[in-house]
């Protein structure tokens, strides 16, 4: 059978109350809502397996054991293999049940009939076989309590679990006394003595694991286990029954005169009694159990309480930790699925939070976004990749959920930044909600308010793939090494990917007076656009295959041709079974940057500036002054914003440098002014990065020139070294113009002396620095200088002192007192 209708995609995320503790430190909410803490988002690809389907087990190879129910109460079982449904057949014409599947996809189950000679047998479906192998009990039980004396013996075997190594666990009536026991549990008041067995592959003679023993007077001794889950190392969990004290209670009518000897019921781990109900065991040997009201995570050394709830399954997720000797080791902290709520019916996951060393719950149903169209009902299993088998009902927001139950597979999507080239420094990027789009009928102002709040939230570091400031050669910056993959995706499932990075200049901040200076190069498509500029997807890939975005030729070309880039990363996933290309990303996050080490930045600046622009570092210090702090201390040479907000941001900002604050994105000065009417206006594209490069025309559609008369290239927005290089180039241009002005002033005002110093700067250098920032607020010379009236920081002054006329040069600070500010940074002792 081919795939049922696939696929919907949804976001699953924790509510802030549940997950905030696992995030980086939050900042207080701003009055306009900007700056709120981002919600952690786990992203899933959701595959709808169809109606009336219930996932029972999820193997590590991505296969799923399914039970499909029919209206007449019957059921069929399927093995889902990445889009193909394989019906599990027994060819025996009787009732068959499937219980467990190991990580190779081998399945065990049970065959039953009412015949008195063999009423139960084990079933085994090999990974490549759709027809079961029947495995009968090796023990011929006599006398057969279900048949007249002297007739055929009874065969009775029951498979209950299978390990990843292929060992099968179950129970047999095994003639251990050849008689019955009475039990107060297990669904009956009587039964034959049973023992627990383990079958190796090939199903030869099983190994006996328990030693329950009956006796002619129907009493019994010992214990036996009903094993429900086994890990690859053979650790098993389940229940055990131990012979209790005989009583005189009534017995079943066909064994008159016998006594009841009830079994004592308890949980077991490897046969050892535990004081809770063990429900699943991880590959690392940890066991999740239920105490009657709460969940307990057991390992041989300790039992840890997880919290209220009822567990269903756990996996073997690991986290890198220090072994105490400076070595990084992988330590298992399983993900757990189960239920919470007063009725223990709310599907929930528990994830280990390494920062807090504790588990944090996520209610899946609440976590599903409005667009998911599913209401979670039950959970079946979780594999080691975090792939969850569940059931859900369709829902349309505002209407009751559909009554039909659907089986779902939730495949986590992972973006990883291989910044450690495969070691423990690699970062799994946590998803964020996607960029808000304008709703029909929504005003621009209302839309901007929502979107500004989105861009200006305190994004967790975990949701930012950072441009590393020094990982490249000679301490140059390096783009993130992004890899996308579907966790737990079966080989048979094919997918196509595409990745888009979009940046809105000005860090996306918009208001009535703010113009959009975004350039075409700010949007990057991987793979590169096809004909007509339309996005294209990769070719088909196995779903478990990594898409190494950072190694793709288009990614490399993009960097080589246009330099670094950042913004909102959007990952799209397209499955061949989907008719239409997806229009919404399945995973969103942020590409941002980290600031260079101040010492290394200073070295690079001094090296780039040379002796001519020895003061260039002071410009950078002033431009980045106060924009980032470390432990409360001012940090200089910053290309990017950090958590630091030195004042109100967004609409409430009074400082141009905080208006467009967005964590991890470039320092941006929104060049703006108020007119006489008090209304704000934008005055050009604004400044970016270490040097706050303010390039280009005043308005987005104005004609561009070259150099700093063109809009700032993307690479200078995202690469701190390119930003420095751009600044030095601009200083060179300004130096040429400054020399012309100096010479012109001295020609037009020949009676005045040579230009003096201004602070630590020579007269010429003071002009260069002024030109770098702009001539706003400067007076005009009253004589033509080089053929024109000039706005000049130096103007000729005549003073009358005691009847004597003195001619001096007056230095005029521009509107922003820029030279004064740079002078103040020259003598700072910090690097």
């Amino acid at each position, binding site marked *: 059978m081919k795939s049922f209708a696939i696929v919907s995609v949804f976001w699953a995320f924790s509510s802030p109350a549940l997950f905030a503790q696992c995030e980086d430190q939050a900042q207080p909410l701003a009055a306009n809502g900007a700056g709120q803490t981002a919600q952690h988002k786990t992203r899933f690809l959701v595959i709808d397996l169809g109606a009336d389907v219930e996932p029972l087990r999820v193997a590590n190879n991505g296969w799923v054991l399914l039970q499909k129910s029919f209206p007449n109460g019957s059921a069929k079982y399927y093995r889902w293999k990445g889009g193909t449904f394989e019906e599990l057949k027994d060819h025996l014409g009787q009732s068959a049940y499937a219980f467990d599947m190991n990580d190779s996809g081998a399945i065990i189950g049970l065959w039953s009939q009412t015949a008195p000679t063999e009423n139960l047998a084990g079933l085994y479906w090999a990974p490549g076989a759709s027809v079961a192998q029947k495995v009968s009990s090796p023990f011929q039980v006599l006398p057969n309590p279900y048949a007249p004396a002297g007739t055929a013996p009874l065969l009775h075997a029951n498979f209950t679990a299978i390990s990843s190594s292929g060992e099968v666990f179950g129970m047999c009536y095994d003639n251990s006394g050849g008689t019955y026991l009475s039990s107060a549990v297990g669904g009956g008041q009587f039964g034959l003595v049973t023992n627990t067995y383990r079958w190796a592959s090939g199903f030869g003679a099983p190994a006996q694991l328990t030693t329950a023993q009956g006796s002619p007077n129907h009493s019994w001794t010992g214990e036996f286990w009903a094993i429900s889950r086994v890990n690859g190392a053979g650790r098993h969990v389940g229940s055990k029954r131990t012979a209790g004290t005989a009583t005189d209670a009534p017995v079943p009518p066909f064994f008159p005169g016998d006594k009841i000897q009830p079994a004592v019921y308890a949980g077991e781990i490897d046969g050892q009694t535990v004081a809770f109900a063990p429900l699943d065991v991880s590959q690392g040997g940890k066991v999740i159990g239920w105490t009657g009201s709460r969940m307990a995570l057991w390992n041989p050394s300790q039992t840890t309480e997880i919290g209220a709830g009822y567990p269903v399954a756990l996996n073997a997720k690991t986290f890198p930790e220090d072994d105490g000797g400076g070595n990084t080791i992988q330590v298992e902290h399983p993900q757990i699925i189960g239920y919470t709520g007063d009725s223990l019916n709310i599907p929930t996951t528990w994830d280990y939070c390494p920062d807090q060393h504790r588990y944090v719950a996520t209610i899946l149903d609440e976590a599903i976004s409005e667009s998911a169209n599913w209401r979670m009902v039950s959970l079946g299993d979780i594999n080691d990749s975090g792939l969850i088998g569940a059931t859900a009902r369709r829902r349309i927001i505002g209407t009751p959920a559909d009554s039909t139950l659907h089986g779902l597979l939730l495949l986590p999507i992972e973006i990883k930044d291989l910044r450690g080239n495969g070691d423990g420094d690699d970062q799994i990027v946590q998803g964020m909600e996607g960029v808000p789009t304008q709703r029909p009928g929504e005003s621009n102002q209302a839309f901007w308010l929502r979107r500004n709040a989105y861009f200006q939230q305190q994004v967790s570091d975990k949701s930012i793939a950072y441009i590393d400031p020094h990982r490249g050669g000679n301490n140059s910056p390096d783009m993130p090494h992004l890899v996308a993959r579907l966790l737990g995706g079966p080989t048979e499932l094919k997918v196509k990917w595409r990745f888009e990075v979009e940046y809105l200049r000005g860090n996306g901040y918009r208001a009535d007076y703010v113009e959009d200076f975004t350039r075409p190069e700010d949007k990057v498509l991987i793979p590169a656009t096809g004909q007509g500029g339309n996005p294209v997807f990769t070719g088909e890939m196995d779903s478990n295959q990594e898409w190494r975005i950072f190694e793709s030729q288009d990614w490399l070309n993009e960097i080589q041709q246009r330099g670094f880039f950042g913004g909102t990363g959007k990952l799209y996933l397209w499955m061949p079974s989907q008719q239409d290309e997806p229009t919404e990303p399945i995973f969103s996050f942020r590409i941002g940057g980290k600031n260079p080490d101040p010492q290394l930045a200073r070295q690079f600046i001094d090296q780039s500036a040379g002796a001519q622009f020895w003061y260039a570092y002071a410009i950078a210090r002033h431009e980045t002054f106060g924009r980032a702090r470390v432990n409360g201390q001012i940090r200089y040479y910053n290309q990017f914003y950090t958590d630091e907000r030195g004042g109100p941001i967004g609409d409430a900002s*009074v*400082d*141009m*440098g905080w208006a467009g604050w967005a964590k991890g994105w470039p320092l941006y*000065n929104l060049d*703006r*002014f*108020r*007119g*006489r009417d*008090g209304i704000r206006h934008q*005055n050009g594209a604004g400044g970016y990065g270490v040097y706050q490069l303010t390039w280009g025309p*005043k308005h987005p559609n104005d004609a561009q020139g070259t150099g700093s008369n063109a809009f700032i290239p993307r690479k200078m927005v995202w690469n701190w070294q390119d930003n420095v290089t751009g600044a030095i180039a601009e200083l060179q241009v300004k130096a040429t113009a400054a020399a012309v002005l100096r010479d012109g002033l001295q020609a*037009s*005002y020949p009676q005045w002396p040579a230009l003096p110093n201004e602070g630590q700067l020579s007269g010429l250098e003071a002009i260069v620095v002024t030109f770098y920032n*702009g*001539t*706003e*607020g*400067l*007076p*005009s*010379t*009253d*004589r*033509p200088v*080089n*053929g*024109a*009236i000039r*706005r000049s920081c130096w*103007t*000729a*002054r*005549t*003073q*009358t*002192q005691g009847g004597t006329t003195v001619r001096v040069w*007056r230095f005029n600070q521009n*509107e*922003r007192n820029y030279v004064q500010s740079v002078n103040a940074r020259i003598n700072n002792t910090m690097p």
Partner: protein
Amino acid sequence: MNIRLLFSLAVIALPGVALAQIFDPVSDFKIGLAIPAGDKILKWECDVNGDGKNETLLSLKSDYDKASENRDPAGWVLYVGGEAGAYSKTEGVETEPETIDSILPDIDPEACFVGQITELGKRGIVTMRIDNPREGESIGKIYAYTIEGDHLKRTELAQYVILQGPDALFTKYLADDKRTHVQLQELAP
């Protein structure tokens, strides 16, 4: 010196002050300027000192536009109207006592009042500029220019935070119903 300049300039001796008598301010204005092709000269006239004779203010349109782009008031060369159609060019601006800066007065024709300035007890031009610091709110600065012999004197009348609404002096002199509505003429150079 070309013929036109010889025609436009005449120097007369007055006690204590040597003023250049100018009969064609526009021609004088162009001296020393390399006016770009296509540029224009902006001109407006008003009686600044109340002597019944208009003063003439001139600027290049390209400079005016550039200043506007930078939110600066334009710098104007001011010629004081005199007898018999003659003008004298003001030389510098007094910004401190006994200090003359060789600069032009910055006057915003759209925020400009020409007339009696009661705070100074004399006639002159009231105008303003707005400073937009990187940190903090925009600051409005209201200035007065008065003619003091051969030069202008600049007096700061008020500073105020733009966002907090118009200053009383803005309302008094520069509000739409109080300001002088300047008509700029564009002249071919």
